[in-house]
């Protein structure tokens, strides 16, 4: 479904990241793990061509065969939000603080949707919010700041999923949340992906989180792809030294002793 080929990201002459090849099959959940400076966020932002000023990407980002890099902004806008959904780390920054949730959700539906009748949109909203386990009528009439961090992130996920995308990109979506909330959001993402056969690219610095939700893991370090493979293999028998070091340094809780 998605294939990155020779994706090179540069700032002027400096190469920030270089990926020879990386794929995501339909319905597959890929985790991209790396520390700061690994280039993981840049890589993922280049998929939807949302790179900051002064940074450019060359190579191919093939989405269902079409190269997203070099597409006109018009076509990209068609794809962003509709076929590819994005969830960022800080939900309070992704939501407009001056608009009620219902309005923001409706805006996205209207922007990409085929239906324009108010009833149709309202029905879709109710369905979406239910999918993310939110109490629809209450949430629709609330402002973002009236919701908790976890609820806000669920809204962001609902917005990202509004048009039934094939792929969801999530960049550290749980990092800013409390641990118990993190768990519920991860469970939600897992559920949504399997129910809708939606692919997922989950970017994180936390191996534990990626372990809970991803089929495959790609490890990045200073702009290079260190190792890619099935989660169990990468975590169980890592080939590269960096991967081993990363695993060793990740905090873990000793298992409960029996009896």
């Amino acid at each position: 479904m998605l294939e990155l080929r020779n994706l090179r990201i540069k700032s002027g002459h400096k190469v920030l990241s270089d990926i020879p090849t990386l794929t995501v099959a339909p319905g597959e959940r890929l985790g991209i793990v790396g520390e700061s400076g690994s280039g993981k966020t840049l890589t993922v932002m280049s998929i939807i061509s949302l790179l900051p000023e002064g940074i450019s990407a060359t190579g191919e980002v093939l989405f269902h065969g079409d190269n997203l890099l070099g597409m006109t902004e018009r076509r990209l806008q068609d794809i962003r939000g509709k076929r590819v959904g994005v969830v960022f780390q800080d939900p309070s920054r992704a939501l407009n603080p001056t608009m009620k949730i219902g309005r923001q959700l409706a805006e996205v539906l209207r922007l990409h949707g085929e239906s324009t009748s108010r009833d149709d949109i309202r029905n879709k909203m109710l369905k979406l919010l239910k999918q993310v386990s939110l109490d629809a009528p209450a949430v629709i009439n609330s402002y973002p700041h009236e919701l908790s961090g976890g609820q806000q992130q669920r809204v962001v996920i609902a917005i990202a999923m509004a048009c039934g995308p094939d792929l969801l990109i999530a960049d550290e979506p749980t990092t800013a949340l409390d641990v118990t909330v993190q768990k519920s959001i991860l469970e939600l993402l897992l559920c949504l992906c399997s129910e809708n056969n939606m692919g997922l690219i989950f970017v994180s610095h936390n191996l534990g989180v990626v372990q809970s939700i991803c089929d495959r893991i790609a490890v990045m370090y200073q702009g290079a792809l260190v190792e890619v493979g099935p989660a169990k293999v990468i975590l169980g028998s890592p080939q590269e030294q960096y991967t081993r070091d990363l695993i060793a340094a990740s905090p873990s809780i000793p298992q409960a002793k029996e009896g």
Partner: protein
Amino acid sequence: MDNEPQKLARAERGRGQIPLQVILGGIFAGFVVGAVLLSFVWTPWGPEFFDVSNRLTGPSASHWFGTDHLGRDLLTMTMLGGRASLSITLISTAIGAIFGVLLALGAAGAPPPIAASLARLADIGIALPSILIALALATALGPGSGSMIIAISVWFVPVTARVLIGPARQVLALDFIEASRSQGRGQFFILLRHVMPNIAPLIIVQISIMFGAGVLIESSLSFLGVGVQPPIPSWGRTLSEAQPLLSVAPHYLLLPGAVIVVAILGFNLLGDGLRVWLDPQQSRRGTD
């Protein structure tokens, strides 16, 4: 985290490239200030010289700016007139900066009841129209550089304070201030040794802007006649003398006027450019 290399690169770029405004502003302002300073050692013609038979002539080889209504060399008068404007502006800006900074630090960092009153003081101060105060003071104290300085300073202090209070409060909310407190430092030390250096770029910008404003206000007040009195030359008065003669001797108004404009423009450009140059990180968002 991930955006750190980009942020550092941007910060380095921001510092390295001097914005055009700083260069242009520096040249304009520097040119005028330089000419005025030059007047202390040399002017094209002596200040006492006048030739009534040669009044109101346009620019020529011997008189680059032409002559005024008394036959004095206009360029000389302009250079000399700048002394009053610039010195009054300099003193007012200094007072504005020093007391403005103190007022801002107090309003940001003093115990709440005091801080609130100081902030109110700054708010009220801005509302006062400087030109009217100047006129009132001139009437009460008599015209001259003294009342001008007081009038301009009275406005500069609260304006500077208002600009700096917000940033000072922001700095006070930063982690290293808390760290400093936990290490035993008192509020006084924190305000002077931690907050002030961290708002220094803004202070420099504000000084530059005050210079431009000061020249403008001083010239306006002199134009109205409440500035320095004859025989001390001043830009504003030169303009007021030149204004009725605009149709017969346009150079008399336009050339000194242009010098004032260049000076004010220069200081303002400098201020704008410095603001961009010295604080490039503030307005940027990260990649995530």
